[in-house]
């Protein structure tokens, strides 16, 4: 396997930042987030998992999917600008796994989602293996691993003196073409593996739908959107038209697609005011059923990659690993019921 030195990698990133849009882990007021960077010096190399997943690079929280312009009585639809090529650098194996789940939803079958497809096509994923599994990580229980190259274009792994370069796709190989790389001496490191979490088989989930467990679990849920917004696979959105500009004989309207979350109280409210998920329990249950049942049924992959972000960010300790343990027990409903 080929190795690139830290210095050569930084030089390569500097050059890349000049040629294309580059997203990479960056410290924003002390919080590591995937953000646009203009040079390698802005990139954090020593991080666990950025607080937000890199889904923002392909599925932004606000996406202007179409604009309408009105000149007097004529309405025109300006052509959307072509997506710029972008490289996401430093994403973790679970993050690439998450993008694969989004791919299944947005472009896995016809009709594809045009906005997502355009950005996805223009994106190259250059990952960085995790040296270990951290608190809350359970990727190995969700079919991943801290050094899993699946769904990446390139995966780098830190070794003494630099990084091994595993260029997997043609896109990835093109990025590293012409670079002088040395040959790895010895074995690449194998990261430590964390605990194994029991994941109930898909077919078992419907039996748990009416458990009182969900209402009891959700009593402490505050109904915010943190778990869904930090999640690399949550992809619900709301679409609304908004006046962007208005003056005499001219107006422009934007159709905005913005992130939405099934945990919010009014997410599922229908015209007329009916809410089919009227309780916190029904809403929180949906989040877990979506991940482990609906997603697999409708699109193929499981909707959880074991990144642990929701565990870290939940203000009231709703812990997806604890939930997976609980639902795997047959008598959980009676154990926690009064």
């Amino acid at each position, binding site marked *: 396997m080929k190795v690139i030195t830290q210095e050569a990698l930084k030089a390569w990133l500097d050059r890349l930042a000049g040629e294309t849009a580059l997203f990479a882990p960056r410290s*924003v*007021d*002390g*919080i590591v*987030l995937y953000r646009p960077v203009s040079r390698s010096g802005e990139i954090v190399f020593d991080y666990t998992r950025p*607080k*937000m997943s890199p889904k923002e690079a392909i599925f932004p*929280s*606000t996406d202007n999917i179409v604009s309408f312009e009105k000149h007097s009585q004529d309405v025109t639809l300006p052509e959307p600008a072509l997506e710029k090529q972008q490289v996401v650098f430093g994403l973790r194996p679970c993050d690439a796994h998450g993008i694969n789940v989004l791919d299944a939803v947005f472009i896995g079958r016809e009709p594809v989602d045009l906005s997502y497809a355009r950005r996805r096509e223009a994106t190259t994923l250059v990952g960085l293996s995790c040296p270990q599994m951290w*608190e*809350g990580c359970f990727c190995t229980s969700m079919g991943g691993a801290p050094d899993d190259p699946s769904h990446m274009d390139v995966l780098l792994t830190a070794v003494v003196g630099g990084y091994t370069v595993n260029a997997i796709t043609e896109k990835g190989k093109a990025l590293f073409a012409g670079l002088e790389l040395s040959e790895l001496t010895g074995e690449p490191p194998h990261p430590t593996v964390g605990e194994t979490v029991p994941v109930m088989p898909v077919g078992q989930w419907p039996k748990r739908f009416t458990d009182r467990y969900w209402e*009891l679990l959700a*009593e*402490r849920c*505050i*109904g*915010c*959107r*943190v778990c869904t*917004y*930090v999640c690399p696979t949550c992809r619900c959105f*709301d679409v*609304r038209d*908004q006046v962007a500009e208005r003056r005499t004989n001219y107006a422009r309207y934007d159709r*905005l697609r*913005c*992130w939405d*979350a099934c945990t*919010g109280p*009014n997410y599922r409210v229908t015209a007329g005011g009916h809410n089919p998920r009227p309780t*916190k329990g029904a809403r929180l249950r949906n989040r877990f059923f979506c991940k482990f049942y609906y997603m697999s049924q409708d699109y193929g992959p499981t909707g959880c990659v074991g990144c642990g972000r929701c*565990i*870290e*960010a939940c*203000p*009231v*300790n709703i*812990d997806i*690993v*604890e939930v997976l343990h609980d639902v795997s027990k047959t008598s959980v409903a009676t154990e926690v019921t*009064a």
Partner: protein
Amino acid sequence: MSQQEQIRAKARELFESKQVECVIGYETGSRGQVRPAFIYGVHDVDRLVWNQGCTHNLTLYLHDKQKPAKKGEPPPRVAIVVKPCDSRDLNVLLAETQIERERVYVIGVACDGIAKGAGFARPSANSNQQPAMQDRCLRCGERVPVVYDVLIGEPPQVDLKDDFADVARLEAMTPAERVAFWLKQYDRCIRCYACRQVCPGCYCNVCMFERDDSLWVGVATGVKEKEFFHLGRAYHLAARCVECNECERVCPMELPLSLLNRKLAKEVLELFRYRAGVEPVKAPLLTMLAEGEEPLI
């Protein structure tokens, strides 16, 4: 008896005498984290804990308990564990007729202060060393709840006065610096609404910032929308916020939200000699007066 044992004993007594159907307190959850607990009978009483991880303001959950569990039934009677800071919310919610005093049994806890990082699996909260206190606790002189039916523990002797030093730091900036400071903070807000959802004072069924018709603010996660949301929320909490700091604690992007609320608390204190929830009042400070009606404060 430790405070934890006293809380458990009181909870047991309340269930045995059928005074309450639920006790809202704290328990140890996964990864050593303390979290809110809902206890429904004597058999679960020993789940209750009291320690320096008990950071959550549980009065938030009283809103849910104002509704009957089943249609036609009366709402449940509940007991709630409150710290001195949280207890001020009881006065606020009573003045705003959001809760019925006779349906709530208040287990007030004399408080020594809460640890930094409490409520999350962060190293600072779970190390073996004596944890650092939260900033708000280091300036807190109110160690006994303002409302309670039973007081758990001996009030610690502290001689502290809130000098709003945190706000002064902000006030020392020029207006342009302050705008720049806040826009930088709002920029990383993800509009998850955790600050609003965790706030006992934010109980509107439909928040004006989340209306389907986008009447006041658009749906985009833009910095203008976020600025409007945070400033609007702060104004809505003026003379109502009890500075429990939950909004700041839960923010995944670590926005210093308490500074907004503290600035308004300071203004209200200077203008009206009023601090939200410290005393029982018949009506909120900021209210509508009918013609000829005299203010109560």
